[in-house]
């Protein structure tokens, strides 16, 4: 009988141990961003200086996005993250679903300090970046002018690469087909517009390679696999600076979007989180980020502190904004599932 009791006791201890191990521990502030060259730049100008300046211990992790990930984190009740950088759709949906804390702007310098599009009840804009047309100057004799050239495989032979899925792909197809960037979503909202986009994609279907992660397009260009690709502007810049590549990009007809910092609901480190957001929101810190990686930032005062040579290659430079279109969050929230199905139907044909 004693043996049985011991065995039961042993079992109970083990089970309790397993259960206890999953209980959230008190932990340091955890900031989550997109990894790669971008997070390296953030480490340099935000994370490390913040640790020194504020004396707050923090660690940083990286993720690949997805509202489902945040939903699981928050609703699972054991969120190990505090501050996360999210894309605009994640911001909208997470805000609707109550996954984020409402931002108290008095703690981060007040709303007036930031550019209006970056101010959101659930998050504060971190960067502005573009999907641009990227190409290798060493391989193409004459430079492409815009998305119309992207679809012209006679004049510019070689394969092309776009992001897998309907988002950005359909907009690019319409701009290439002559739709003014400002009207893209008006056209895409109609069935004829969607048909038109797929028809345009049909013209280069055999030459298309699909990329899934932001690191792939520069690799596809570098290996000569494709002649042109859609790519995040910062990646082109980084490849040119750090890997001595000679890549070019076209700002005309670029698609831009914002990423924002959010604080996950129920974060135990809210005070530290606000301290960090305040630090990362200051003009002088943001200007340093832009000098390390070619992204625009949200503080109104940042642009004035950036050298003109750097400024002209940023998404927020007036010339680069001229013919760019903001990716329409509301449109994609409504249509992403349907158009994803349609896109895959088309891709499988």
């Amino acid at each position: 009988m004693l043996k049985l009791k011991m065995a039961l006791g042993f079992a109970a201890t083990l089970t309790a141990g397993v259960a206890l191990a999953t209980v959230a521990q008190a932990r340091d502030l955890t900031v989550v961003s997109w990894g790669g060259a971008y997070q390296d730049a953030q480490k340099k100008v935000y994370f490390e200086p913040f640790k020194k300046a504020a004396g707050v211990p923090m660690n940083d992790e990286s993720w690949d996005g997805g509202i489902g990930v945040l939903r699981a984190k928050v609703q699972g009740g054991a969120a190990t993250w505090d501050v996360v950088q999210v894309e605009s759709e994640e911001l909208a949906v997470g805000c609707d679903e109550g996954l984020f804390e409402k931002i108290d702007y008095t703690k981060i310098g007040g709303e007036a300090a930031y550019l209006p599009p970056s101010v959101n009840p659930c998050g504060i804009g971190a960067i502005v970046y573009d999907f641009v047309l990227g190409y290798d100057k060493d391989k193409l004799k004459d430079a492409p002018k815009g998305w119309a050239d992207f679809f012209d495989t006679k004049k510019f032979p070689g394969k092309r690469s776009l992001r897998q899925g309907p988002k950005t792909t359909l907009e690019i197809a319409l701009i290439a087909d002559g739709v003014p960037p400002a009207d893209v979503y008006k056209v895409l909202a109609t069935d004829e517009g969607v048909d038109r986009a797929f028809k345009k994609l049909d013209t280069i279907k055999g030459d298309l390679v699909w990329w899934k992660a932001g690191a792939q397009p520069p690799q596809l260009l570098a290996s000569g696999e494709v002649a042109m690709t859609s790519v995040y502007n910062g990646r082109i810049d980084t490849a040119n600076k750090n890997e001595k590549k000679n890549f070019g990009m076209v700002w005309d007809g670029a698609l831009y979007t914002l990423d924002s910092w959010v604080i996950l609901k129920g974060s135990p480190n809210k005070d530290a989180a606000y301290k960090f957001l305040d630090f990362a929101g200051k003009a002088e810190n943001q200007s340093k980020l832009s000098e390390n990686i070619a992204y625009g930032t949200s503080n109104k005062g940042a642009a004035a502190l950036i050298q003109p040579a750097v400024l002209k290659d940023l998404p927020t430079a007036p010339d680069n904004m001229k013919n760019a279109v903001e990716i329409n969050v509301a449109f994609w929230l409504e249509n992403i599932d349907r158009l994803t199905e349609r896109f895959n139907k088309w891709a499988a044909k």
Partner: protein
Amino acid sequence: MTEAFLTSADAPTDVPLKRRLKRAERARQVKALALVLPLLAFLLFTFLGPIAGMLWHAVDDWEVRKVLPLTVAALASWDGKDLPDEKAYAALADDVLAARAAGTLAIAAKRLNYAVNGFRTILTGTARNLKAPPEPGTAKETLGKINPAWRDRATWAAIKGASGPVTGFYLLAALDLTRNVDGAIVAAPPDQAIYRDIFVRTFTIGLSVTVLCLILGFPVAYLLATLPAGRSNLLMIFVLLPFWTSLLVRTCAWIVLLQTNGVVNDSLRFLGIIDAPMRLIYNRFGVYVAMTHVLLPFMILPLYSSMKAISPAYMRAAASLGAPPLTAFLRIYLPQTLPGIAAGSLLVFILALGYYITPALVGGGADQMMSYFIALYTTETANWGLASALGALLLAATLLLAVVYGKLVQGQQVTGGMKN
């Protein structure tokens, strides 16, 4: 008589021995159970629980019930033949106003948008334009003015269809089916009917990779099993080395080898075998090559262990009895390796069904497998209902195949044809 005989003399009670034996047996079983309890608990938490959760998500329909409770109640008695009555409209107006104040409208909008594309706009637009509850008796008119969709039976059918508490909506969608406005099950519109094809694609890739692994793995396993220990151990390292390398590294290595200006194309061009580079990657060929390479060890190891157990004396005996090598192989050797073939094939096939990263990196648009879509709906668009339904169907199909396969393999006696 026997009873008396069986009762032990020194027993304090007159409990028959049989019963005491049973008791001791039961105590032993309880002890054994207590020892595996941690493992059971672990499995329950990490495996069975999440799977049950997934299955529940596939039929759970909570959003509209939670956000628009009055409307759901008002529509309970609606026959769906004509537009609902004034009561339902008034209930909807109240629900929308309350949900807007609570900030929960988007949750219902998301769910209804799956059923009727554009419902998100209908609901948010209605909430924006509805300043106050409409005067009694005017709700129908007011809502119809705000958005003509409220004069459409399909809009209300969508709400009724999403009233929960459980729904077949996602499971039907995963089979390319949908319910029309009258509630009858019909085929989904052609632009949205992709999932059957993806199931077929997933099983085709899984089966092809299994066959390729078997063809390539069988001779390797045979070699390993028949070589002297020293050399076979060396070869075994070569089999295991890629096995210990990260999946991602192996997949990316294939990109380097197979791309347009990759090692393979450049070598073939250098040798003058081809003029223009061949397309070896970002298509089905690339998927087969990379997946076969990654899964090969899972085929070789079970085959090797079953071949190790076969005594070479059998083949010698067959030869001495006059069987030609092929006959001896087919009738003596092959049947004895069947358990290994069965285990290896099942392992490779089921692992292949769940592949996601490899096809995503080396496949084209037409080579994405079911896991890709499950991941897409889980993380990116957060359509957990559809993701769970696809997962549930994949699980069901896999279990079914495993059962059928098990029956087939069991039917094969290891004597394999020697008796007839």
